Each structure stands twice: as C-alpha cells, then as structure tokens.
C-alpha cells in the first residue's frame, strides 16, 4: 500500500494520500488534527483482515454476549418478577385512586382482603359465574379467555365495595392496558387506570395522565344492558361517553376497542351481580315507614329504615 490513510480526529474524515491534507474538507480542522490510520496490520502480527479471524472473532463475540445476557437475565429474573408483581398491585390500587402509597403491597392486601381473610382475586367466566375464588392475580394477560377472567373485589376505608376489571388492548405503537374500578352497582365507574408500552408522548401517552383518567369517574359502563362506555370526540351521551384526546385518534380507538371487547366478556357478571347487590330504591311515598315520616329532616326511622336505599332516608 503506497498511499496511507489519514484520519481527521475531529470528525473522522478519512483522507487517502501520501500526506495529510492541509485542511479537513468536512470540519475544516488543520493538518495537525490528522493521524495515520491504524489499518489492521498490527504489531502483534495478527492479520485481522483474514476470513478465519473474522469468523472466529464474530463467533467469540456472539458467545460472550449470549452468555452475558443469559446470565444476567436469569440472575435478575426473580427480582424483576417481584417488581412486575408489585407494579401490578400499584396499578390496581391506582384504579381505586390510591396513589403514592408507601407500602403498596401491604395496602393492596388490606384493600383486596377487606374484612374477609382471603385475597378476593376471583376468576369469573363470560356467563357471569364465579369459577374460582382465588388465583385471579396470577392469570397472565395472554391467558385471559372467556372461561378465565380475573376480577378483583376491594373494600375501601369507607367500607364501600369496588369491583376491578383488568383489560388489555392495542394502541398505536404497542400494547395498552388498564384497570377499571366499579362501584357496587356494577355499573358506575369509581376510578380507572390506563397505561401503555410506547404511545407517543404528549398525544397517545396522555391516556396515562390523571387528567384523562379523571374524566371516567362517575360514567356508566352499561346502558340498557349493553356495554356502552367509550371515548368520543363529540359527546352525545354524557352518561357513557368520555371526552377523547385530540391528536391521539388511534390510541383512543384502541382504548375503545379494549373497553368494548373486554367489558363485553364481563357483561354477564356485571348484570347478574348488579341485580343481587343493588336493593331497589324505594320512593318516599312507598316507604314502609311512610306512616312514621314526620316531614323533612325528621324521618323517624332514618338509619334503621328497612328499605336500605329509601331515597328520602335521613333527608325527609
């Protein structure tokens, strides 16, 4: 090789010739910034350009990297799984509007156990029956089928019962998922939590923001016995529709698809359960204690009223 290679140390430009150029054509650095390129023909006498060397080198690199990655991955597996589990508990708590808890694992146990001594992580099926009263937490997202639907029951500090439905779907770039907590009427939303793997920051990623999630509180999941909850550009029915995020159309339709598909599976459970749970609201004039009613604010029976949901209870 007659011509030497000169490399610009500033920008990496390679010049071929007998001497370094006066000025680097790329970055205008002077001749002093050039040095002769080390071209593979080494002091060690090893020909790094030979085929055999290249093949062996790549094989060794691949083996080292493979062992390194496999080793690290298996060494850290248990810690990572524990983190993932803890994160799932945090997400479930977030759907109940419990955030920034110091010890989420303990709080989760407290809430999900309620007054019972068991974690209420149920598995229900699409016919609305509870298949198993445990193991719901361990169901991975890709194993959720019509016969295998996880559902969590939580009791909050004020004694109210909430049902939490997990769900997954697809956004614009990747997976989206969330939890919806319902009041004990199995219809009104108490709180939601959404997250995503890789939606666009500032647009689709806003589904993970409090601002978007707080819009869901108080909305209904079902209308006339059908799943009706959705996010929409124009609100036609404020009971079941939530204001969408402008500029994030595909992520929002992903949320809609997720809501429609997953809630449909739980519909039977929700309908069935709502009937059992909710005592019919009794109008004041049909109140069994109507004869004792002494006028506004003077209800004689008040808290002991047998009609648990008398709409004038304590008021009339």
């Amino acid at each position, binding site marked *: 090789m007659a011509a030497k290679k000169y490399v610009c140390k500033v920008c990496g430009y390679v010049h071929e010739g007998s001497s370094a150029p006066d000025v680097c054509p790329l970055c*205008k650095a002077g001749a002093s910034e050039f040095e002769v390129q*080390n071209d593979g023909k080494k002091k060690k006498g090893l020909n790094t350009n030979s085929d055999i060397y290249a093949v062996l*080198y790549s094989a060794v690199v691949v083996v080292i*990297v493979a062992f390194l*990655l496999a080793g*690290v991955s298996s060494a850290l597996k248990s*810690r990572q799984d524990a983190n993932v589990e803890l994160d799932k508990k945090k997400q479930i708590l977030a759907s109940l509007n419990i955030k920034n808890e110091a010890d989420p694992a303990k709080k989760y146990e407290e809430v999900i156990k309620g007054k019972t001594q068991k974690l209420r992580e149920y598995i229900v099926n699409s016919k609305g029956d509870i298949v198993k009263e445990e193991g719901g937490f361990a169901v991975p997202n890709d194993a959720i089928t019509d016969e295998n639907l996880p559902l969590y029951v939580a009791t909050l500090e004020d004694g109210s019962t909430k049902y939490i439905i997990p769900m997954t779907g697809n956004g614009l770039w990747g997976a989206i998922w969330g939890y919806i907590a319902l009041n004990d009427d199995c219809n009104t939303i108490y709180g939601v939590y959404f997250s995503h793997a890789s939606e666009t*920051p500032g647009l689709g990623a806003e589904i993970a923001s409090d601002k978007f999630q707080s819009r869901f509180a108080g909305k209904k999941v079902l209308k006339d016995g059908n799943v009706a909850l959705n996010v929409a550009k124009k609100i036609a029915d404020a009971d079941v529709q939530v204001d969408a995020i402008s500029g994030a159309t595909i992520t929002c339709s992903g949320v809609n698809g997720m809501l429609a598909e997953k809630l449909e599976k739980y519909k039977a459970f929700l309908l069935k359960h709502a009937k059992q749970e909710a005592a019919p609201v009794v109008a004041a004039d049909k109140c069994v204690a109507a004869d004792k009613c002494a006028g506004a604010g003077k209800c004689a029976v008040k808290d002991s009223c047998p009609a648990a949901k008398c709409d004038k209870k304590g008021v009339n």
Partner: protein
Amino acid sequence: MGLSKKNKEALTAPLLKDNPVTVQVLGICSALAVTSKLEPAVVMGLSVTIIVSMANVIISLIRNTIPNRIRIIVQLVVVAALVTLVSEVLKAFAYDVSVQLSVYIGLIITNCILMGRLEAFAMQNKPWPSFLDGIGNGLGYAMILVIVAFFRELFGSGTLFNYPVVEKLGLYDCGYLNNGLMLMTPAAFILIACIVWYQRAKDKSLQE
C-alpha cells in the same frame, strides 16, 4: 480537572461547533420522537449520554482486535448488548425508571449518534478520550432535545415538566389556545432547522 487540550476538545466540541444534531445531523429521528415533552427529552438525553460513553469505551478498548470488515456488526452487537443489560439491571433495581425508559430502548440502539461516534471516534482513539467524546456528544444531543422540547411542550401543551405554566398565567382565560402543530413531528423539524439556521448565522465557519 486537568484535561489536555485534545481531551477538552473531545468533550466540548460536540456541545456547539460539532453538535451531533445540528452539525453532524445525527440522531434526528429520535430527536423528533421524544421532544413533545421535556421529561422524555431529558430521560432520553441522559440515557444516550450514558450509553454512548460506555459503548465508546468498550469499542475503544477492543478497537485493535476488531476485524475491519465486520466492525459495524461488532459495534452494533456491543451497543445492543449494553442497552439490553442496562435495561435488565434497571428492571431489577429501579423498576420505575425502567418503565419510563422502556419506550426509548429501541430508539437508543438505533440512534445514529452511537454508531456515528463509535465508527468515527472510538475506533481510532484511546478509551479516555473516547469516553469524553461520548459524554460530550451525549450532552450536545441532550441539549438540543431539551431546547426543542421546551418550545414544543410550552406551545403545544402549555406545560413545562407537566407543570401547567400557561394555565397559571391565566392566558387561557384571555382566549389563548395551545398550538396542536407543536405536538406533531413537523414542529420538531422546524425548530431544529431554526436552531441550525441560528447557529450557522452566528458561526461563519460552519457555513458551507
């Protein structure tokens, strides 16, 4: 810190007159993707700084053994392995950070700045200057991201680091509206072009 003139150059040149984004025109794709908010821009800038300096050191250490013909593949393997390792470790010890970063892992591996610096600098230089070059380029990149993200978040969402600045100033009450274009990628193009324009107008030596 006693740095030789050459090492100082490796560290400071990428900040302005050899900036990876505005002068070398590397890493544009990720600069578009993560700059709609300040927070991801900062996270991305820091991660690239760390990864590019680490990769630079590793490649620099083995630079004399790498066969010339497969050097790009070797560089890619090193970068990909490094990023994967870092994300695994974060997942085990700092889960919240890893959740934040998960979006950017792919963007870091394919970031042209990494390959560009490995090929242009680490292959020819000793580990210490290579490390400084990585830090310099990472910070130069982060700086541009933060500048772009500042304007995009302020005018696009009316917030800074998710703090509602515009709302607190009461501008919405006067009929001010956020500029939706700022959240779209073309806005990043326009802003980066403005920075390039300004920089070249100031520094005549950069003009072609």
